[in-house]
């Protein structure tokens, strides 16, 4: 399941529906990314720009790769775009597998690829205006550990 959306979603309800959709899984892992405002550097919102057609294609490709590589029973990705306030859920990855290691590895792999290979761009809204979030070299390194 791949969903790219401007609308809020309920991560707990998504996880429950995902879990209930398969009977053979013994392990589920979810990752949820949350808009964060640090006291020492507060933001009022996170604005996510997206290229939706490309996002759906790339997320589907990443998902298929993870399914095969880790033998997952299922994998799901939900990613929002638009303006989100602190505490809101940005995105979610879910994996179902027979055992825990595949579920953990699959979710971590999806996150590492998604961070650097899915066409979303974050902008932070602060009292001083908007600023683009810079890509992190550590995200490239995290992705490359799977190669």
């Amino acid at each position: 399941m791949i969903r790219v959306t401007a609308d809020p979603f309920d991560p707990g309800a998504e996880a429950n529906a995902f879990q209930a959709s398969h009977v053979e899984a013994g392990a589920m892992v979810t990752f949820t990314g949350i808009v964060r405002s640090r006291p020492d550097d507060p933001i009022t919102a996170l604005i996510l720009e997206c290229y939706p057609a490309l996002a759906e294609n790339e997320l589907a490709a990443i998902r298929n790769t993870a399914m095969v590589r880790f033998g997952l029973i299922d994998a799901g990705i939900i990613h929002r775009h638009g303006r989100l306030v602190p505490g809101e859920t940005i995105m979610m990855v879910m994996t179902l597998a027979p055992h825990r290691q595949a579920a953990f590895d699959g979710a971590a792999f999806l996150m590492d690829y998604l961070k650097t290979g899915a066409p979303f761009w974050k902008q932070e809204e602060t009292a001083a205006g908007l600023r683009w979030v810079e890509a992190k070299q550590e995200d490239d390194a995290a992705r490359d550990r799977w190669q």
Partner: protein
Amino acid sequence: MKVLYFAWLRERLNRASDEVSPPPDVRTLADLVAWLRSQDDALDHAMANPAIFKLSRDARIVPWDTPLAGAREVAILPPMTGG
């Protein structure tokens, strides 16, 4: 054909897309980027470090040396920061 710009590249150019008709010697996506840069100082400047950009052809990320023929939509993608 259409060329799309995203995020800070879109901001620097003050537009999200161009409709272009590249000459016949523009054969690959890399050729297209070189040709676009030769037409536009702002784009040329914004892409001074070209290695950081990815390119897509009809909504699929592809290598820079991918042929352009038949493409309807090419996008120039600054480093992504999703997740």
